């Protein structure tokens, strides 16, 4: 439905914050969605205390996947694997149980609220988180 593609989502995807390879990546992880063949790569540069300094992503995927990666590109710096996992869980809760959008820095994820009604697309939003969390992990 068109409500999935509100201007916000399209803009996030178009902005593509953090898109591109990271020259000084400490780790890079590629994740596939077997259902649609989408593929997301996250390069991360990890700093002290296992916190992210910078990310770069390459997305072969749909607008939802691109927009999700773009949100991560904008807000990942300063997070670690555990805090990103917490963000992903609240995003999941929003999609699967209709929980409110995450608060604070990650409030932009509320843009994806209409995806809740489309189970077949949940994975599109979650895939980039999978990639960045794996990249930020040990």
């Amino acid at each position: 439905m068109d409500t999935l593609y509100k201007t916000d989502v399209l803009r996030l995807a178009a902005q593509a914050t953090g898109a591109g390879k990271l020259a000084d990546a400490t780790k890079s992880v590629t994740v596939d969605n077997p259902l649609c063949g989408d593929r997301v790569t996250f390069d991360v540069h990890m700093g002290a205390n296992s916190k992210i300094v910078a990310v770069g992503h390459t997305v072969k995927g749909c607008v939802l996947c691109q927009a999700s990666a773009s949100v991560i590109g904008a807000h990942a710096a300063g997070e670690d694997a555990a805090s990103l996992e917490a963000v992903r869980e609240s995003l999941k809760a929003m999609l699967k149980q209709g929980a409110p959008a995450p608060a604070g820095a990650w409030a932009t994820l509320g843009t994806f609220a209409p995806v809740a009604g489309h189970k077949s697309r949940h994975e599109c939003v979650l895939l980039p988180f999978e990639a960045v969390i794996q990249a930020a992990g040990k």
Partner: protein
Amino acid sequence: MNKPVRVVPFDVEAVRAQFPILRTLLHGKVPLHYLDNAATAQVPEAVLEAVRAHDALRRANVKRGVHALAEAATDAYEAARRKVAQHLNAREEREIVFTSGTTGAINLVANAFGATLKPGDEVVLSGLEHHSNLVPWQLLRDRAGIKLRFLGVTEEGRIDTGDLDELVSERCKLIAVTHVSNVTGAITDVAAVVRAARTVGARVLLDGAQRASHGPVDVQALGVDFYALSSHKMFGPTGVGALWGRAEVLASLPPFLGGGEMIRTVTLEKSTWADIPARFEAGTPPITQAVGLGAAIDWQAGVDTAAAAVHTAHLADRILDGLRSLGGANRRIRVIGPQTMERRFPVIAFAVEGAHPHDICQMLDGHGVALRGGHHCAQPFHDSLGLAGTSRASLALYNNAGDVDAFLTGLDDALTKLT
């Protein structure tokens, strides 16, 4: 399919009126434009009613019962077999085995015929196959040590029969290819395949999943040995399909699944097998669904399928034209497969540079248009095109100009937003 020359007025609205789902309002407001017929076709009232009536009036297990319901159910089930035999112009009714669908039918052949193969024997497939006509053979290869060889695909999205001479050797025991591609709609040059098979004594299996909804098939004229189809793609119920097999070939094969009704005698030590088709119908078959498939064939027989083919070919032409005109300088649209409706059915897959098929399909859904996006269970073919997926519009005889307009308008809108 070649466009038939005669111009019969095809009353599409009269046909539409028989499909309750076409009156659906999606999201509570948008009329449904169902262009996902290659995935599954819709069901006319006559079939809905046949299914209900069977379970409400004649329900019983088949084959062994002597009470009145069991006789009525067996008669209905066997009448359905007769209808499938007629639809395919099979020589004998016993050549029809009811299965769970095309996938079930092909797995049956891959196992029963597969059991007759020896290590080093070859099965020839193509690069255009649906996973259902590829994975069962890969499993057989891994089990039995046979070798798979693959016919290429032409630029036009057809199975390249030019490869036959090279690929079909004396070791080839079977050529298994699709009759009609579920991605490009292209009709395979079956005569060339059969010719090549006959020179080496190989059998031919056609995957008819995409063909059987477009009017009767003549397996005798095609000259093949096996034909697989799914009811749900031909206006019938899910849960049933059929394998046609030449009687002498079927009769020479061991059983695949074991269970009730496929046996002659059973002891704890040893069992012997029933004649065909029972040998391949282990357990309670999809009785009501077979009856529904029979009703769907009756329904299809009541339609002028030649006129319907002209009708859908015209609609498909409009889609092809529309895609060409929507694809301008900064919107690159690539139609996969033949660029005209020559020797093809109305299944049209396309890729838009910079727009993901799922975004396209989702946006079109907002317009009430049901498309399908992805690799359509033909991942090797998509890989060969360098694409992860395509969007696919596939027509059935109940589609009308309004469906095409909604599709083209919706696509224009989607591409404006996405590219």
